[in-house]
């Protein structure tokens, strides 16, 4: 009995140290981890703020560049392409109207010249010259003034307008010359051609001049 009692007492004493769970607490660990985390986070926050600022700057730069590029692109396009306003200008309309008439006039003059062989030599000179000139002007308008998407040819729109105005005036002049040529060819006779070769017209003009002077000085009552 005593023996059993003793065993129980020993067991009881042993159980005093018994525990279901033991936690080992590392005191410095939490402090160190907290310090490390705080340090890293503060730096990362700074880093993040700087990255945010850089991102914001980059976005602004991108926006600015986009605007600059858009403007530059517009300027570039205005230099490489002819404006729609010039494409549909009245100058071009009248040029397009007059060029066929010039060819018609030259053709008409050639028909007259066939009937009057002494005019052929004039037609050859003037007619061919007008055709060459009008063709070169046409090419100049289509290849130069109306140039489109030509990177090697940058022309200001007002320069295009000025050039078109010059061409328009030249076409007008050629048109008038061609008109005049037809008119002159119709009026020109064989006698006039002979007169041109034999210069007695000079004497006639001299006599006319003297007579006119006498008439001017005549005192009429």
């Amino acid at each position, binding site marked *: 009995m005593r023996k059993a009692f003793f065993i129980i007492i020993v067991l009881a004493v042993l159980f005093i140290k018994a525990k279901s769970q033991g936690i*080992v607490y590392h005191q410095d660990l939490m402090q160190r981890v907290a310090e490390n985390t705080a340090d890293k986070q503060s730096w990362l926050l700074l880093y993040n703020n700087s990255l945010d600022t850089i991102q914001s700057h980059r976005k602004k730069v991108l926006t*600015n560049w986009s605007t600059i590029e858009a403007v530059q692109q517009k300027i570039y396009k205005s230099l490489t392409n002819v404006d729609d306003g010039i494409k549909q200008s009245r100058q071009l309309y009248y040029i397009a109207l007059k060029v066929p008439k010039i060819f018609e006039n030259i053709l008409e003059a050639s028909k007259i010249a066939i009937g009057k062989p002494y005019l052929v030599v004039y037609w050859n000179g003037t007619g061919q010259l007008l055709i060459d000139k009008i063709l070169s002007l046409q090419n100049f308008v289509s290849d130069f003034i109306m140039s489109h998407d030509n990177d090697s040819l940058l022309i200001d729109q007002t320069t295009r307008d000025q050039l078109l105005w010059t061409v328009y005036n030249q076409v007008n002049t050629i048109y008038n010359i061609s008109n005049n040529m037809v008119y002159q060819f119709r009026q020109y006779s064989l006698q006039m051609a002979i007169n041109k070769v034999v210069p007695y017209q000079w004497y006639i003009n001299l006599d006319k001049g003297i007579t006119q002077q006498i008439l001017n000085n005549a005192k009429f009552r």
Partner: protein
Amino acid sequence: MRKMNFFLIMITFLLLPNFLLAQTVTPVQDKANNGQLKRMVFNQWDDWQPTPNTNWLGLPKNPIGWFYWRVLHHAYWNGKDKRPWKTGGQFQQNYLSLLVQKNFDRKMVDTTNKMMETNLATALSMTGGIADLPYQLYFENKFAGLYQDVTNYYEALQTKYPASFNLMMNSSNGKRYIEFLDVEKNRIETIHELFVDRGSRMVSYFKILGELQPACEEIKNYIRSYMLLAALPAPQKIQQPSKPKISDSTDTEIVRDLLKNWKSN
């Protein structure tokens, strides 16, 4: 006696749970771990635990620490300070370059902003239509005045002398003038809408103005001449002018008559 013993045993059993612990918390010091944590971020590089140091006799203070650091991880122990967040460390270097980058980008923003402002101002000055200020302020009225003036002349001729107006409009010069006015008006409208340099646009306006002003005067004079012609009386109402009495019988008489009237200087 037996009862007494039993009672004591029971009391003992009942008291036992009082001493039983469900959970214990034991603070410990893991110096090695602590040293490693210091090395991992920023605190301290050389807190080696257990110590690899030797005593004054050159013998290891802690053989395990000595072996672990000086033999097993010698390169690490003997190597450079690798704390990423140390002062002047990798992170701070990166951060410094980031600050440099930030500063550079801010300058880029300023520069591009100015460039954008300049470009926008250029684009605005090149834009035609409503943004064409010289036209709004000066040229519009100037051109409108010239055209109105000529139109008034045309209308006056048309109202007073419709037949002469038709005659003039069908004449080659009349057609030429109409075409000229049409072309110049179209040029002004085109240039007004163009996307061009403001200076070039103004030069064009001045050139057109220089052409238009004398041309308008010419046209007005032309119309005025038609008005004057139209205002003349009908041919039958014009009296026959008195012809000079020059004999026309013979050439001799004509010459004699002329010489009689000769006014010598």
